[in-house]
């Protein structure tokens, strides 16, 4: 079955009791039991809820994993996955990782005795060089946020595997529609489901997906013990959002390609970062491991004054944090997604104060370009 069909037909498209064409919202905390010795499949919604489970099984299928887990936010998913590690464990992390991930690693997990080294993972030699005898995890984003840097997943996994290191990939920008890291040997896929998976800028949620049965067991334990789960209403909204994943990703991507091409031709735009551009560093690697270039692009403008004019002047794209919605969203990484990173760390990574990130939505590309034309030129 093609992925586009699997999005709609995955065993959860019809309610088994009523044959309704949508999963019911089980807004319930607890489930009555029929036997003292054998509890039913559900006992308490933190441990398992049918609506959340439908969503978890759907995301697991789309990522070609065996188990999916839904959390209250992308950060809750990432934090829960990081609880797999113990004091004394060391992690290697891509350097322009999402600011929220950077923050939780450097201010909370560091206190629990988990150390992280940030390196430019576009060069596999840097990953190899950063591995130590106590390294237990490799945390990657490809394309990264907001610089759209590409990491060779299969190459990175090979390095990690032979040392028994777990590879975690934040697949938020691509979604399984374009990229399936588990197929490339990665161990854990993480998502801010808030973005393209839900796709409507209306729900905060996160996912972890695995194939390995032992990892699945450990994450399930953490999800239940730590309790940072996604509620049933939100789970249902994400199931609803997911149904249009294919059409949204295709349409947003074609808009992004058109906008990236146009931006590349503008004098006041110093640089355009988008994996779909032939000259984008890592373009070939990305083409090998993904079936699309996605709908997020970043660009650097000639001056701070112009940057301000663009952010405040665009009408089509909402000036806001987040991305991946039906609405185009323009944001300013230095003060938004990466505000949690100290300024010198940001500059060193290339997240400068003239960098703008654009998440292309479902508006007509011509309207978006006309809007940008007005503020840039």
């Amino acid at each position, binding site marked *: 079955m093609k992925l586009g069909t699997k999005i709609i037909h995955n065993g959860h498209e019809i309610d088994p009791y009523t044959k309704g064409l949508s999963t019911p919202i089980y*807004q*319930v*905390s*607890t*489930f*009555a*039991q029929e036997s*003292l010795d054998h*509890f039913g499949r559900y*006992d*308490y*919604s*933190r441990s398992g809820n049918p609506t959340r489970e439908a969503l978890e099984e759907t995301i697991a299928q789309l990522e070609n994993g065996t188990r999916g887990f839904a*959390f*209250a*936010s*992308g*950060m*809750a998913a990432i*934090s829960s996955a990081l*609880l797999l590690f*113990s*004091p004394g464990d060391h992690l290697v992390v891509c350097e322009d990782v999402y600011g*929220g991930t950077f*923050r*939780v690693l450097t*201010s*909370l997990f560091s*206190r*629990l*005795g988990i150390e992280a080294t940030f390196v430019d993972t576009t060069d596999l030699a840097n990953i190899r060089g950063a591995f130590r005898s106590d390294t237990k995890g490799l945390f990657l984003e490809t394309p990264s946020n907001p610089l759209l840097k590409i990491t060779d997943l299969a190459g990175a996994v090979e390095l990690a595997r032979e040392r028994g290191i777990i590879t975690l990939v934040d697949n938020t920008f691509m979604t399984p529609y374009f990229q399936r890291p588990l197929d490339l040997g990665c161990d854990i896929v993480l998502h801010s489901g808030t973005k393209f998976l839900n796709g409507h*800028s*209306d*729900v*905060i949620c*996160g996912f972890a997906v695995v194939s390995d049965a032992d990892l699945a067991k450990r994450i399930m*334990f*953490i999800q239940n*013990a*730590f*309790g*940072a*789960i*996604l*509620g049933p*209403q*939100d789970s249902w*909204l994400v199931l609803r959002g997911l149904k249009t994943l294919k059409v949204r990703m295709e349409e947003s991507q074609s808009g992004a390609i058109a906008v990236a091409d146009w931006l590349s031709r503008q004098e006041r735009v110093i640089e355009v970062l988008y994996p779909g551009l032939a000259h984008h560093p890592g373009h070939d690697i990305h083409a090998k491991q993904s079936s699309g270039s996605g709908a997020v692009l970043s660009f650097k403008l000639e001056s701070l004054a112009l940057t*301000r004019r663009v*952010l*405040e002047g665009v009408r089509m794209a*909402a*000036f*806001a*944090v*987040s991305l991946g*919605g039906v609405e185009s*969203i323009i944001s300013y990484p230095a*003060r*938004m997604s990466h505000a949690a990173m100290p300024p010198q760390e940001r500059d060193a990574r290339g997240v400068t104060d003239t960098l703008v990130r654009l998440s292309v939505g479902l508006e007509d590309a011509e309207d978006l370009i006309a809007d940008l034309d007005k503020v840039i030129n």
Partner: protein
Amino acid sequence: MNISTQAVQIGLDWETRTGAVTVPIYQTATFRHPGLGQSTGYDYTRSGNPTRQALEDGIARLDGGTRGFAYASGMAAIANLLLLFKRGDHLIVTEDLYGGTYRLFEKVFSQYDLSFTYVDTSDVEAVRSAIRPESRALFVESLTNPLLKVADIASLATLCRDLGLLCIVDNTFLTPYLLRPLDLGADITVYSATKYLSGHNDTLAGLVVVKDAILAETVYFNQNSVGAVLGPQDSWLTIRGMKTLSVRLDRQQENARRIAEWLQSHGQVRKIYYPGLPDHPGHDLLKEQARGFGAMIAFEVNDQSLVERLLMKTKVISFAESLGGVESLITFPEGQTHADIEPEIRIRLGINNVLLRLSVGIEDADDLIADLAQAFE
């Protein structure tokens, strides 16, 4: 203002544009910025959402604290509080603790070199003698689960203040309607709002209230970083539930008193734990510090065979985990809520194979008593 009035007022003054008397459900992930460096006060729902904030402000007011925080579950709330501590810190904890909290402490956080000593917190001297140089906090259930031991919050809070310990009170069984730990000197209250606060067995939620403004900043930092937040729909449902907190609890307590008296005179009940009974060891203390005794009852039956009979044969009362809702629920702590506690500890505490826990709902007391009577036969 009286608590029952405050509870009804939650969110009432929020919407000035339309005059709606309930807070709108802001099912949004992100908020548009008016300009560069400007914010409406809301940027991204993980960091702050108006619906969730109405709930957070509401519980802070009910508890007389500075700031409230809402989480995806009670366990997520407690887990977030544990992130206040660092490696080597020691906590003193109520011994007959909810099994989920025990699991979180022992199976998740102990690996980060946090250590826990479990004592009978209804005995202030037992708490005092458990304090060590590295002790940082006392985590106490105001009314314990399932044995309904009463903690002297005023004395414990004084002890904590004298020795520089944080006094954290899990006030789930009493709620601010019956007990306000912050008024008695505690620093933090935490709730599984799934229970009485939401009160309908339909929403999972956790709440925290902090008294000190600086400590509240740290709790906020952790809430935003880890991202285990409560979604807007569930926030709204919790607010909705809280509006009937006082009427539900009044009725539940009245029902509980009648059932406890009936059980007391039943030949097949050998022991009963209900603080509303004058011979309960915590009765006088609750009379002094609280405005009620709650609606949880634990009791031992004469014979193990009666356990299964009661669980299976009750019709009005459902056999299910959880508690505090409008529906009455009966559970078997040894096999359900406290299954994660080691058997020898359970036995020492009195959580044995003839102990049942009853969460009394708002049904008519006569029907509940008749239901129990027919199940005993």
